[in-house]
């Protein structure tokens, strides 16, 4: 019955052996991972909705906000959390300064902060936090599920890291990237979150002009 020279015992035809299945699985995962990273880095997201997507969240006033509310504007999305005293304010300050540098073109850009820590970041907390950078910055929060959904769409990684036994003794590990979305909601390109205001303004200027 077996016509191959395979020394292994014959098995049902058509079904790959478990090790082969595992290898195929790893290869598929690798292709997806590399492809995803390449698309993110080269900005090929223009060709399809690779980053971003529909979301329903809540703003600082407790009002429901969806991705559709931002249509017609370039949207600069940053994921962070208000208990982040170091990296998030550094980036958001540069974004605020970049908006100032843009001049009249700033009217076409909407910076948005989305928390990855909805447990602590209630609407009033988010409102107080974003207001400190620029009144133009919209802060959004939501349920754990809503945040998980939008983070997944934006390929954002986030995880709680316990630092002690208390309820507030944790920090959030999170992707720190600025996502530039077009007026139609499609992904244009990622912008380095550790860049200067001038770097961010240059990238925004290029996109809106």
């Amino acid at each position, binding site marked *: 019955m077996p016509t191959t020279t395979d020394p292994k015992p014959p098995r049902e035809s058509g079904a790959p052996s478990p090790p082969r299945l595992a290898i195929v699985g790893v290869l598929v995962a690798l292709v997806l991972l590399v492809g995803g990273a390449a698309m993110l880095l080269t900005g090929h997201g223009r060709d399809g909705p690779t980053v971003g997507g529909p979301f329903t969240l809540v703003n600082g006033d407790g009002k429901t906000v969806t991705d559709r509310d931002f249509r017609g504007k370039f949207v600069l999305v940053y994921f962070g959390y208000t208990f982040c005293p*170091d990296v998030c304010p*550094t980036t958001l300050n540069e974004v605020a300064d970049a908006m100032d540098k843009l001049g009249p073109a700033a009217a076409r850009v909407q910076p948005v902060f989305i928390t990855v820590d909805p447990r602590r970041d209630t609407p009033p907390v988010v409102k107080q*936090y974003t207001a400190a950078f620029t009144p133009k910055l919209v802060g959004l929060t939501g349920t754990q599920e809503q945040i998980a959904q939008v983070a997944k769409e934006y390929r954002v990684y986030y995880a709680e*890291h316990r630092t002690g036994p208390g309820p507030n003794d944790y920090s959030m*590990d999170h992707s720190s990237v600025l996502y530039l979305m077009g007026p139609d909601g499609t992904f244009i390109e990622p912008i380095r979150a550790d860049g200067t205001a001038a770097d961010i303004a240059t990238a925004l200027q290029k996109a809106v002009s």
Partner: protein
Amino acid sequence: MRNRLLPFAIVIAAFTAAPVIAVMSAHAADTGLTVQQPWARPGAEGQVGVVYLTVIDTGAPDRLVGARSPVATDVQLHESTKEGTVMKMRPIEGAAVAPGQPLVLKPGSYHIMLMGLKQTLKEGDTVPVTLLFEKAGAVETQATVRREPPPQ
């Protein structure tokens, strides 16, 4: 008459205490530790704040092991690290300083985290901070609240 003398007593006491306080802060300098460009970010009451500074050591090697500030309910030493595009923040036990090896607390690196601000910190405000060193003990400094790092 005793009550009339009280204000004089307070003034005399203040003048006597002033040099003592001056000597105490000078004592910190004797440890060889100098704090440069301490600054804090603006922050809202109830939220978190941050203090950055540089410690120059011209004496013996030492270690920053903690900090205190009356503007926060808790103060911790933290370090931010970056892995790819993922930022992480972790509490640290301490950070070394030695002659020729300044301890630099700056954005995206070591920082003093002010947890639970008791007051809103606005640009131009001053935040008292006590740095706790393993050998030198307490060193006082005043951080200025500003949005951007001070010019180098």
